[in-house]
């Protein structure tokens, strides 16, 4: 149970303070400021215990968000809530910064009243919140509207109101994935995993029932048992999902029994599911580093990047960051493609390419001049990191179908226009050198 919630600016001044339970005093926000924000050492743990009070914090830009409790709460729940809160605030007033928070503090207090009750998280869904917390000032709602909102929010299907009508029934599915990798200099994968999300944007009339299918191994195997063991041989690859979570609209009982994902979607955009895979990841890029010490005051770095996907696809926003030693006094960079620059403020060479097709390779070489130092400290050689965006799902996830049934209204599955998009992004994509 969250006892209170504080928002601080980068100086540690309190912007928002809301206390839900009596066991948290006003001095709790000072304790956090003194022990975490202004701490002598950088506090890396997201959970800090000060005087039997737990502080859960996260930072967005220059804003600190901190939830406080004296009880033994589920820490993951608290962080989930904090993330949701950030999402809600972003959807209400855009970027989270000091300026925006100061301008919207009435709204934020209103939201805080709604999302937490006596410290228990309530509705954090933006769509629902927006039905009764509006930015247009106080709009007198008619009695009907109020009863409708009440019945919806308290009813069985709280995430969708009745009587929605669209001329065009349309839905968009985005599969967003981020790839994380740590590779040894010899090209051995030390760790790799994909964190993915399926985001749906629906504009559908009535109360439609949807069914979502993908190439999950478990689901496929179950289906195949009934028919045949064809799929394994037929070349349709299936993926092994390590774990996943669903939006509240998904009927979990059905998933448990039939492994099918069926739901009545929320109106507008929502995150249908989140998942994680660790096996058979197709790594979009391979980084091959080559570091040589030429002389006492000189070293040479060569980095080759190979793209490893279909030649027809194009990767975008490619950025490679090559760390340089701390006593670098000058850098000469030579690259065929894109732009490369030594950024002294970050102690790294940053190489940027707008796009790159599949099955290509590209190279950069740099000569680094070093300044002799008083103490011979060995450079720790931090890994080379990379950022990119590719138009496929590196986990191999495929959407097989998404069927829509609306028995009451006269449109069926074929009338719905469906769009599917795959985006693979880099998470922490690093190669040791």
């Amino acid at each position, binding site marked *: 149970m969250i006892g209170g919630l504080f928002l601080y600016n980068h100086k540690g001044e309190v912007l928002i303070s809301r206390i839900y339970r009596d066991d948290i005093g006003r001095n709790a926000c000072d304790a956090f400021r003194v022990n975490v924000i202004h701490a002598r050492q950088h506090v890396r743990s997201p959970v800090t215990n000060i005087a039997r009070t737990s502080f859960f914090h996260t930072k967005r830009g220059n804003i600190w968000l901190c939830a406080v409790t004296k009880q033994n709460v589920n820490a993951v729940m608290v962080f989930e809530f904090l993330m949701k809160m950030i999402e809600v605030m972003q959807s209400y007033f855009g970027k989270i910064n000091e300026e925006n928070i100061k301008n919207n503090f009435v709204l934020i207090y209103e939201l805080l009243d709604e999302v937490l009750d006596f410290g228990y998280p309530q509705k954090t869904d933006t769509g629902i919140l927006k039905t009764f917390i509006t930015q247009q000032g106080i709009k007198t709602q008619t009695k009907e509207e109020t009863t409708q909102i009440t019945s919806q929010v308290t009813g069985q299907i709280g995430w969708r109101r009745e009587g929605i009508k669209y001329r065009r029934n349309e839905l968009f599915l985005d599969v967003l994935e981020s790839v994380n990798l740590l590779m040894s200099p010899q090209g051995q994968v030390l760790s790799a995993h994909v964190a993915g999300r399926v985001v749906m944007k629906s504009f559908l009339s009535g109360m439609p029932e949807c069914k979502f299918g993908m190439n999950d191994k478990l689901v496929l195997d179950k289906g195949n048992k009934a028919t045949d063991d064809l799929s394994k041989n037929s070349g349709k690859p299936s993926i092994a999902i390590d774990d996943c979570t669903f939006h509240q609209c998904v009927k979990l009982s059905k998933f448990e029994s039939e492994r099918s994902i069926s739901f009545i979607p929320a109106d507008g955009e929502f995150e249908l599911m989140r998942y994680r895979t660790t096996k058979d990841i197709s790594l979009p890029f391979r980084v091959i580093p080559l570091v040589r010490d030429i002389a006492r*005051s000189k070293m040479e770095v060569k980095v080759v990047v190979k793209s490893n996907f279909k030649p027809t696809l194009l990767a975008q926003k490619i950025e490679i960051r090559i760390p340089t030693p*701390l006593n670098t006094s000058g850098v000469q960079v030579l690259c065929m493609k894109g732009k490369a620059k030594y950024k002294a*403020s970050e102690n790294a060479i940053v190489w940027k390419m707008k796009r790159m097709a599949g099955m290509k390779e590209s190279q950069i070489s740099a000569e680094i001049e070093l*300044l002799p*130092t008083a103490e011979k400290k060995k450079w720790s050689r931090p890994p080379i990191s990379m950022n990119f965006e590719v138009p496929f799902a590196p986990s191999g996830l495929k959407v097989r179908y998404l069927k829509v049934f609306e028995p009451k209204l006269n449109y069926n599955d074929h009338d719905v226009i469906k769009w599917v998009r795959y985006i693979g992004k880099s998470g922490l994509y690093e190669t040791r050198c």
Partner: protein
Amino acid sequence: MPTVSSRGDAMRGLAVFISDIRNCKSKEAESKRINKELANIRSKFKGDKTLDGYSKKKYVCKLLFIFLLGHDIDFGHMEAVNLLSSNKYTEKQIGYLFISVLVSSNSDLMKLIIQNIKNDISSPKPVHVNLALHCIANIGSAEMSEAFGQEVPKLLVSAHASESVKQSAALCLLRLIRTLPDAMTYAEWASRVIHLLNDQHMGVVTSAASLIHTLSQLSPGDYKGCVSLAVSRLSRIVTSTYTDLQDYTYYFVPAPWLSVKLLRLLQCYPVPEEPAVRGRLVECLETILNKCQEPPKSKKVQHSNSKNAVLFEAINLIIHIDSEPNLLVRACNQLGQFLQHRETNLRYLALESMCLLAGSEFSADAVKKHRETVINALKTERDVSVRQRAVDLLYAMCDKTNSEEIVAEMLAYLKKADYAIREEMVLKVAILSEKYASDYTWYVDTILQLIRVAGDYVSEEVWHRVIQIVINRDDAQGYAAKTVFENLQAPACHENMVKVGGYILGEFGNLIAGDERSSPLVQFNLLHSKFHLCTPSTRALLLSTYIKFINLFPEIKQTIQNVLQNDNQLRNADVELQQRALEYSQLSSITSQDVLATVLEEMPPFPERESSILAKLKKKKPASVQAIEKEEEKMKKSPPSIENHVNVPKEVPANTNSVDLLGLSTPPATPQQSTNSLLVDVFGSVDQPVAPKPESNISKSETAGSVDPEAAQNKSNLLFSRFLFKNSGVLFENNLIQVGVKCEFKEHTGRVGLFFGNKTGNQLQNFSASVSMGADLQGKVNIAPQKEAPTQIDGGAQVQHFVNLECITFFSGSPNLQLRYQHASTPQQVTLKLPVIINKFMEGTNMPAADFFNRWKQLGQPVQETQKIFQANHPIDTEAAKTKLTGFGMSVLINVDPNPDNLVGSGIVKTKTSQIGCLLRLEPNKEAKMYRLTVRSSVGEVAALLCTMLEEHF
């Protein structure tokens, strides 16, 4: 001094950089900006470019700033060193600054830096010399002391160095001396340094005073001359008005720092002998005391602070002199005024100084006048540290007349005292009440009250001490038993109280048993009601008390035995409790009342020694005890108090069983030591004799089971010779068998216990052990085995064999022991000498010096004396020699020979037919490492034999 901000030196880039950093919104932004700047500086410092002095200075400055922000800087040292050779002051200054902040003393650059400093030190410009001196002092490494240990003193005493240089040189030298006090020679420039005290410039004098203070601590002899100079300088300052020393007057006080330093310096030396100097010093001190009576010239706190600083230092000096009653009393009165001052610090200092004053015989009475105030301070003071000082002072001012009141006040205060000072207070109360007690009932009451009030803070030593004193004092015992009994009746009493109660009732419970209200059963039930609430160590003590009760009150024996035989005791998880319960219940049921009474006899009085409480207090607070030490010395002369009562020895028997009471706390050394040692004997047959391990080199020389007889013989000879001085140990050992010996001799009879241990896993068969005598012993010694020797020894087992001896007449040599046994079907034979030597039948005799010399003269015939002069085999150590002689059987006579190094002993060899007296004198010559040993005996042979036996062992 040249200003930094002159045109062209402004370093705009630095200002911009600093303001950039200050404007950074977040930590990340700041570190980005710093990284950028560092990269910029690195590119500038790259080898291929030459930089002008200005930019070098600027970048070095930036690096310094970044370093001060907490980032590591590992370059730029070379550039900083380059700056040193610049001619501009500001550039040099920054270079020196960087070096003193950032260069570690073991850097490679140190040689270069030292060279640069050397150049600057010999520069004609005083500012450059100053910079160099500051740098030396700031680095202050051993290397620096070596490099400049000779140069800096030259600057200090040179005729044409400017004042500022002298000032810096003095402080620099001070720093170097502190780093490496041995590397310097002080004597050669001592007189010139001393004369710096006469310098015109006050700054030079101030810094010189600090230097001389340190130097005079290192070599007091060379700097003796500074006393008169310091006194005259002090008097000039003290008598001057505040307008005289323009720059060195601080809030109307003339040169307070210098005055304090001079006063400190004077405390390093004894009071000046010459009457003129002494008179002048006294005059100065009087003036300082007078000045305090004047109305303040300013209301500012700085004025009073500096004035008081001088005053307190002056009082310290007065205490140091300790021979001017007038001054001491005045100082005391002055401090008395401060006791009620508003300033907490002043009150603290006043109490602290008064503690010292209380130790002086002249001012002790003056201090005592303030008793009321101090007690009041204890009650009302808000600051805990001041209260602590008040306690110290009360402790210091306590004497016979006021002890009861002070102890009562301290006890009252103890109830609400801070936890931090409670333990110390308890110790102090305990010491005071013991030292000044005129009557034991008061003492016992006080300590018991102490335990009641602050039981947790009463350390072991305190209650041990009560018991010691009660046991040593017959007249206090009854009262103690009664009071303890009353105190124990409280529903909740502290464990320490139970301990004291348990011990005292166990010893003296009979004294109050006559009263119906404290009949034996009541006493026992009272103690036993506390039993279950106590820790094991206390329970152990209570069990001992119970067995004592059985002895004291046979009528409740049954009740107590029931308790002892209860499973709670007999099967207690604590081994100590279990053992005690078992042994005590056996002791009480098996033995007769007589044995019980002997075992549980009343504890003998404790030998007197330094109070363990005082020792503990000393360990805690070495400083504060000094005052009381002085008191102590005085006390020794003054009329008797408890300690002196106790000091009168009540014929303490030399009973080794009189246990160190401090051992009480650890269960094994119980008050029942006497019981225990008896128990050991009772179970003696069960007890395995613990033979000490032989030296390893000996066992190494052993080979297989078949022993080289010669080697074995040598070894057993060596082992044998050790038995000259002791009665038990290992006689022989090879890798098959170990032979241990334990002998007991009484007059002309003895019993030798032989312990044969089989070290192998197999049985030794056909074992036989026989004692035989050579022809020379026939008829002189009778030997009778108690039983037949065993015929076999199982693997790993030990068997024993006892032999009785009787010495008929004087003999030399010793009987043989023949061992035969079969191992791995090979027969083995070993012949050993039994450690039965003539000296075993010798008993030491004590006699006064006159008797000794009388007898010595009686045995004056040449036949009766044997004298040998020989080289010492061991380092000459009187104590060790004493132990050896005692082990040999002689008793060492003390205070007979006027030379304490010489040892004199006497003993009587007792045989069945005759008694032969022996006298011995051992004179070491430490230079030549020689001894002269003279033995006289009524039988000449005995003297010769003893002399040869002892010769090789010194």
